[in-house]
């Protein structure tokens, strides 16, 4: 396009009298738009970090500890240095000023025991996979070959792996700390003034009500994003550019500056296309710091890409909790109190938000229910295992699992349908906004409607009838129906709330919108998508707001030089917080352009109204489109006093509250009582996530979340052996579900708009994962309950199911007895995945 200044003036003048034109605007919010992101991804033109090739780029391979806990006696790198095309071999000793720190940004108590986590071990390793040296070579293959030649002499130290074992402090994960106990955090409704005294409620229930006591295990999982982590660092002159497969480019940039002393302004972090994260890329990693340090040392671009086996052992894990739960209720099933005692294994180091993840459960164990009394206790411990941090749901799936399993147990005890017990205790739709016993204000919801719809889609009564028939005919394949009525807190987060919890950052999000002279719109977001489709959804929001075509909106993200301000993507926060920031930036753009439009129309700004991309003088057909205003401001030959040329605006939104999506999930599982094999027959979920921007994307988020949650219930577990070696160290042993393991789902939505943002959205990224795990286990237990089984430890593999059935049979049904306690000294550990501990005392 070639336009002379004069022509611009003419255009600007012409538009004033122009007929209203179709600006292309139409309701975009709610439109199942196909994604803008797809084109490059389906044609192989994606920019993954590992695709980046720079002139003279060197490759890094890590030398990692095979031991869980050991002193480093010596490192002999001579053979590696002599290997072909090796440029350098480095150890921590080569960096006397350090390489930065993998910081813990959320110390949950002032006295939290937090071991220093340096990117490269200095004289001791505290978990297998810890980096002890790094080899730099001209190719990745040569670097890996030479890494094998680095001779590290270790002196093994006693190591502790299991959280319960760690509590005894007999073996210390970090001897210099004197204890494995990291922090203790408590919320008590009586002390907080949000409810009654839970111990009194339990004592009363022991006299004349029901007390359900259960111990559940949240096994350790691996986020297992499909794109292995990769980092490229290019130290050009004084500016350092880091590309990294990260969810958090902004936080990474800040923590690089804060822990290395490199001025923040000299660091540019780019998260190009990122292949999944699920919390697993919410970290500042040793690998990023080492790559940065080596690139600076050699003044050359350096790339590090992990192998999958490195990823499984060294990228942070998730979950790993023991839960001891005590639920008090009246004889007819009205819950009077819940006491939660958590023991959370944080691994060898307190990760960026690792200590806080289990604490997020504090506000979720009470779930959708009106519990009069509540107490949450969380003890975190350190062990010589891979560090543990956020994995999809982060604290909320663990809590939801605990309470939704308990509610089924209560229903069984009372002898009513699990949905009946939930309805008896849940918050009714008239009661919103509702202040929970944990002190949270739930914005909106309608559990009744979601549940009614889910039952209808599931054909609940027919499946219950079939279940009855199979029980009566003693069918070897029994049918179980699992219920999960969940809520979660999304939209991390009100900065004030985070501050009160000693979190190291705020929870706001930023957006900038600039209208280009040709009417195209650039949107810069501080969120950092890695599969969520922000480019599409954010375009829809802006297209609606500004009344411009969807195709004319370009969303820019993930580069700190472009999106200079942001807090990135995790915790289902992007739309709820980042989306609202976009709305506010758009409104500022509209307001800013209005002054110009008024000038062009020779009208008073107060007389203008804006709709569908067009300013019109009220009561007339005089008007001008916002894109024409953009062009006129580009020339700016003629503009009013007090107005700056250009139509652009920034906004930062800090929410007042979280949002609370909810949903009802129903799962039918067939359990072969002869083989222990379980087969999913049907899965229905009705999620209420408030207003929906793009139903197609929402559906995809739910599907993916469901399978991750189902995988926890049925297949996945990170297992260490007695030496602290990760047995599930490849995809051969860490069994992600395949297409052949899963079914197609029935998903629908109900809508209770959130009141915490003007879009009325709630967040959907984690819903499926949070809800599905208890739905599946509840279904399996429901199938087997007549045999006297009331728990199967996850993952509910055929072996565990079969063993539970066998031991139930051996005890002639008396296996109802107690679940083998996880809290006693010789409890089954991760090292013994075959021990269910369930069914009956072994």
């Amino acid at each position, binding site marked *: 396009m070639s336009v002379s200044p004069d022509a611009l003036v003419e255009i600007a003048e012409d538009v004033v009298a122009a007929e209203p034109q179709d600006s292309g605007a139409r309701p975009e919010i709610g439109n199942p738009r*196909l*994604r803008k*992101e*797809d*084109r*490059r*991804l*389906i*044609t*192989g*033109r*994606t920019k*993954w970090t*590992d*695709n980046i*090739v720079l002139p003279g780029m060197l490759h890094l391979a890590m030398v990692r500890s095979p031991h869980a806990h050991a002193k480093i006696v010596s490192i002999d790198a001579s053979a590696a240095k002599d290997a072909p095309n090796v440029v350098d071999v480095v150890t921590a000793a080569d960096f006397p000023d350090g390489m930065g720190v993998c910081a813990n940004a959320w110390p949950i108590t002032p006295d939290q025991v937090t071991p220093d986590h340096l990117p490269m071990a200095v004289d001791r390793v505290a978990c297998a996979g810890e980096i002890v040296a790094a080899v730099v070579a001209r*190719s990745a*293959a040569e670097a890996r070959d030479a890494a094998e030649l680095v001779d590290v002499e270790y002196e093994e130290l006693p190591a502790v792996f299991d959280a319960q074992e760690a509590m005894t402090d007999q073996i210390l994960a970090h001897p210099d700390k004197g204890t494995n106990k990291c922090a203790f955090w408590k919320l008590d409704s009586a002390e907080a003034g949000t409810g009654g005294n839970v111990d009194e409620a339990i004592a009363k229930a022991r006299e004349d009500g029901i007390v359900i006591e259960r111990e559940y295990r949240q096994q350790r999982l691996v986020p*297992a*994003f*499909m*794109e*292995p982590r990769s980092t490229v660092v290019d130290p050009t002159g004084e500016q350092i550019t880091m590309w990294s497969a990260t969810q958090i480019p902004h936080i990474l940039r800040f923590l690089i500056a804060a822990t290395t002393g490199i001025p923040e302004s000299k660091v540019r972090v780019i998260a190009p*296309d*990122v*292949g*999944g994260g*699920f919390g697993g890329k919410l970290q500042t990693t040793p690998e990023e710091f080492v790559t940065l340090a080596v690139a600076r040392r050699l003044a050359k671009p350096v790339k590090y890409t992990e*192998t*999958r*086996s490195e990823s499984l052992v060294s990228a942070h894990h998730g979950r790993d909790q023991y839960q001891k739960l005590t639920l008090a209720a009246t004889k007819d099933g009205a819950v009077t109190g819940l006491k939660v005692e958590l023991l959370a294994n944080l691994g060898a180091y307190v990760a960026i938000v690792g200590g806080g993840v289990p604490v997020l459960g504090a506000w979720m164990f009470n779930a959708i229910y009106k519990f009069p009394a509540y107490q949450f206790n969380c003890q975190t411990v350190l062990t010589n295992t891979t560090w543990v941090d956020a994995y999809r749901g982060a604290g909320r799936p663990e809590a939801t699992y605990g309470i939704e399993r308990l509610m089924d147990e209560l229903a069984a005890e009372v002898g009513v349908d699990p949905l009946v017990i939930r309805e008896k205790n849940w918050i009714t739709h008239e009661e919103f906004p509702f202040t929970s016993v944990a002190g949270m204000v739930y914005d909106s919801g309608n559990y009744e409607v979601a549940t009614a719809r889910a039952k209808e889609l599931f054909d609940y009564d027919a499946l219950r009838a079939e279940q009855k028939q199979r029980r009566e005919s003693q069918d070897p394949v029994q049918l179980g129906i699992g219920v999960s009525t969940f809520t979660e807190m999304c939209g991390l987060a009100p900065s004030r709330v985070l501050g009160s919890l000693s979190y190291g950052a705020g929870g706001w999000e930023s957006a900038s919108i600039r209208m280009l002279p040709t009417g195209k719109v650039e949107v810069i977001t501080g969120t950092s998508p*890695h*599969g*969520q*489709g922000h480019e599409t959804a954010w375009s829809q929001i802006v297209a609606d707001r500004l009344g411009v075509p969807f195709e004319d909106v370009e969303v820019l993200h993930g580069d700190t030089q472009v999106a200079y301000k942001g807090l990135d993507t995790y915790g289902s926060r992007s739309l709820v917080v980042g989306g609202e920031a976009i709305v506010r930036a758009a409104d500022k753009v509209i307001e800013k352009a209005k002054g110009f439009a008024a000038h062009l129309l020779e009208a008073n700004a107060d007389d203008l109204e804006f709709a569908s991309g067009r300013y019109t003088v009220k009561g007339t057909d005089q008007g001008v489109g916002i894109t024409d205003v953009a062009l006129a401001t580009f020339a700016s030959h003629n503009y009013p006093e007090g107005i700056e040329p250009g139509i652009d605006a920034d906004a930062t939104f800090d929410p007042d509250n979280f949002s609370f999506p909810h949903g009802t999930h129903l799962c039918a599982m067939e359990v072969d009582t002869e083989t222990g094999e379980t087969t999913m027959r049907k899965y229905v979920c009705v999620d209420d996530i408030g207003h929906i921007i793009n139903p*197609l*994307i929402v*559906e*995809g*988020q739910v*599907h*993916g*979340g*469901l*399978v*991750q949650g189902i995988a926890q219930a049925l297949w996945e577990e990170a297992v260490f052996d007695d030496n602290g070696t990760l047995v599930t160290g*490849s*995809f*051969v042993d860490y069994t*992600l579900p*395949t*297409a*052949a393991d*899963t079914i*197609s*789902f029935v998903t629908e939505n109900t809508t209770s708009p959130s009141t915490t943002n003007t879009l009325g959205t709630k967040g959907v990224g984690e819903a*499926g994962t949070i809800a599905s795990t208890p739905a599946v286990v509840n279904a399996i237990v429901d199938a087997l309950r007549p045999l006297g089984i009331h728990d199967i430890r996850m993952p509910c593999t055929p072996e565990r199911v079969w063993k539970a059935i066998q031991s139930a049979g051996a005890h002639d049904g008396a296996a109802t007895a107690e679940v083998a306690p996880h809290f006693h000294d010789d409890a089954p550990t991760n090292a013994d995945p075959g021990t269910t501990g369930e069914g009956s005392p072994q």
Partner: protein
Amino acid sequence: MTRITVTVDGQRFVDDVEPRTLLVSYLRENLGKVGTVVGCDTSNCGACTVHLDGRSVKSCNVLAVQADGHEVTTIEGISTAGGLHPMQQAFHECHALQCGYCTPGMIMQAIDILTDNPDPSEEEIRAGLEGNLCRCTGYHNIVKAVAQCAAAGKGGE
């Protein structure tokens, strides 16, 4: 070093490679065909799936020298001047990808399924995709995309 002659996405390449070089490394590092990606070290994930003489293989499980004299098609070679391959289009329309990392391999495998069986059942589609892992979609929409492509009768081209 061994000299190989390979046709990749319709173009003939002559290169000297180390005998141990994997086909996926050759494609990515020698030819810049970075559309094909690596997801694991154990041939479990299928992210690197390409076609060797028209049949799907995991290119991390094939040596470059084994491709000598053969024809390789990657995700970068299936769209035509006329536009996307029908399977690419189906993945787009069915929202069968999120992060997109597994997508190239998934699409190449999906095409192979329909080459074998132009009218597969859902169960057959799922069985055919078993060697390709996706962590984002829960497979629901991938299965839907393959079925849609099959229904249109043009998936295995």
